[in-house]
């Protein structure tokens, strides 16, 4: 019944099946929206945050989605600025994932603040010394860039593209996309960085504080680097999941291998920097404040050295190595393992930089604080995931997201059951 909207030559499942899937995920969205409504109506007492945990679950989610959404800016940068042409076959999808991640991040921020109707104060009464101001400005600008990057793909919908104006608009936007992509990369560099800066400038928190360059602590650069490194992993992971769900191959292996290789080198270089940063922090910064590194990983029920080891070695060094070595990179199973570990790694890093910071006592007579989120927090954190699934489903169904889809799936028409 919606065949007129489906890209030419593409096979999609029957509409009722599609609608059912959307309805199921939609129920999760409604649950999240209900929780969101409760929070807006009744206030943040609906969460289990407290004065120790001013940043909690969904701020971690916020940072995590922005980190994994980093695939969009980095792929865009490679495609449009460094002219890595193969990436045109995955750029649309990277942009959609980025769009989902960033719109989710903005939504989470709107739920997170205690006074949503005053949210615009961050722009209007901006304190330029605050990393959060930098985040807000760059984040919203970069979201605008993502929207701009997304629009041509929307306009390529079979029906929309029939409209000459839309057709031309899409065409022209493609034409100047490099300018947008460059601006996006600039903005993204700063907001990814300033998210890292958010933690790094907190010099009252020895676990977070880092020295750095000018006003930017090392975490600023580490965050940007890690988002660029692990973002493509997430793009690849979501591509893989989409392929699994649709039962089709959507992106050619050479593209995947290329992105995986780039990601691998980025991860490896990042993790070297991270290790150096950690060693410097543990041996110079923290002892200078009278603290032993043990302080941050002991005397509590949850945070031990395991988290440091998992983040850096298991989810950093290992995926990095797996992706830079050709043999492992081109092994589908090991590649999948590497990108999953990578995504976990960057999420864990954000967790540590949000939640562990809050948990650690600073005053000698303070105590560790652990925190368990409320269902409302969980629901509003799941909300973006469900919303993302719906948006991917809809865009996949109606937009020519994967340029190689037709080619890859035309050769075996017999096995097509979708």
């Amino acid at each position, binding site marked *: 019944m919606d065949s007129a909207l489906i890209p030419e030559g593409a096979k999609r499942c029957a509409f009722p099946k599609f609608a059912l899937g959307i309805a199921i995920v939609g129920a999760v969205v409604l649950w999240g929206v209900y929780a969101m409504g409760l929070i807006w109506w009744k*206030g943040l007492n609906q969460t289990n*945050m407290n004065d120790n945990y001013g940043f909690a679950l969904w701020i971690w989610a916020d940072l995590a989605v922005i980190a994994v959404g980093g695939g969009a800016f980095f792929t865009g940068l490679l495609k449009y600025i460094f002219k890595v042409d193969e990436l045109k076959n995955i750029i649309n999808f990277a942009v959609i994932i980025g769009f989902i991640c960033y719109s989710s991040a903005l939504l989470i921020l709107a739920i997170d603040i205690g*006074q949503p109707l005053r949210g615009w104060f961050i722009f209007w009464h901006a304190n330029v010394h605050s990393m959060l101001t930098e985040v807000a400005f760059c984040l919203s600008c970069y979201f605008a860039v993502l929207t701009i990057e997304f629009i041509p793909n929307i306009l390529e919908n079979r029906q929309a593209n029939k409209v000459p104006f839309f057709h031309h608009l899409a065409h022209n936007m493609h034409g100047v996309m490099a300018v947008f992509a460059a601006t996006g990369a600039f903005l993204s560099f700063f907001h990814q960085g300033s998210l890292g800066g958010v933690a790094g400038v*907190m010099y*009252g928190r020895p676990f977070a504080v880092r020295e750095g360059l000018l006003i930017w602590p090392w975490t600023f650069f580490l965050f940007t680097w890690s988002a660029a490194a692990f973002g493509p992993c997430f793009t690849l992971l979501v591509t893989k999941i989409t392929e699994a769900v649709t039962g089709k191959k959507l992106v050619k292996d050479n593209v995947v291998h290329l992105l995986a290789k780039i990601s691998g080198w980025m991860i490896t270089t990042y993790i070297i920097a991270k290790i150096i940063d950690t060693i410097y922090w543990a041996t110079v910064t923290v002892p200078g404040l009278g603290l032993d590194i043990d302080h941050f990983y002991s005397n509590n029920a949850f945070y031990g050295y395991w988290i440091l080891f998992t983040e850096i070695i298991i989810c950093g060094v290992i995926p990095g190595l797996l992706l830079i070595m050709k043999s492992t990179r081109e092994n589908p199973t090991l590649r999948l393992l590497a990108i999953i570990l990578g995504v976990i790694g960057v999420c864990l890093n954000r967790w540590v930089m949000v939640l562990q910071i809050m948990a650690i006592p600073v*005053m000698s007579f303070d105590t560790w604080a652990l925190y368990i989120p409320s269902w409302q927090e969980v629901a509003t954190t799941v909300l973006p995931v469900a919303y993302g699934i719906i948006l991917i489903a809809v865009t996949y169904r109606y937009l020519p997201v994967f340029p190689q889809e037709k080619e890859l799936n035309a050769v075996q028409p017999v096995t097509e059951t979708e």
Partner: protein
Amino acid sequence: MNKNDKKAHKFGMVIDLDKCTGCGSCMVSCMSENNVPFKEDESNKKDSITWMRVYKLTNGKSFPETEIVYLPRPCQHCGGKGDHGHSPCVSVCPATATDYGYDTGIVSQIYTRCFGCRYCMGACPYHARYFNWWDPKWPEGMEKYLSPDVSPRMRGVVEKCSFCYHRYQAAKDKAYYDGREDIEENEYQTACTTACPAGAIVFGDLYNPAHRVHEIVKPDPHPASINSTVVGKSRNPNVFRLLERLGTNPKVYYLSEREWVRKAGDNYLAGEWDKIKNHHGSESHG
């Protein structure tokens, strides 16, 4: 900039922990002075608003060697690294809802500007900032005791100790009326200071050598030798600040004759204290 204003004050506090009895008068005086609300259950101290919080510290030894001390903790009104006014919280507020008054050294918090991002709370290592998770509600009729000098906070914003700034405003008003340039030491005292039955809290201008707080603290105008971002370290060997090494430069000082109490004020590596303690307070030329 007014940073170098000759008329500037630097209001600060010194709390004698040997006199403090942990009675709680300062907390209640503060709550009642500043229209701090209360809830049905305040036993979860992580969501209980007490601008002035009294911590109980122990020396960690077992019976009968145990010792305890109470440590009242208002907002520390940090001057930030180098005492330039970039307090941990002020520098991170995205909407300029908190600023550093270079004329008084007092860190403000403007509830109507705050939009509740809570970044400042994360940045403050003293837990001195509190979030209004709930709408403030008073039992019917009890809102009649609210003071018009301090505006009640609405849900969704951060609040904290203001060093009873409204009392400074009132004292200045009086001085204006009398045609005076400035106020006397006793004209501006915080609610906790006046309430303390043990007289453990002394409040005044750290710049003014005639004020008691200056006499006790004897702040060192030079940066500390071990950490150049630390300014205003006390030259009184019994006086210390909380987490002084972080460079937050609090304007709240503590006084104790007990070594373990002074040591509890900051973090020290094993063996470090013994090296530092002898220099403590008198190391400006070290």
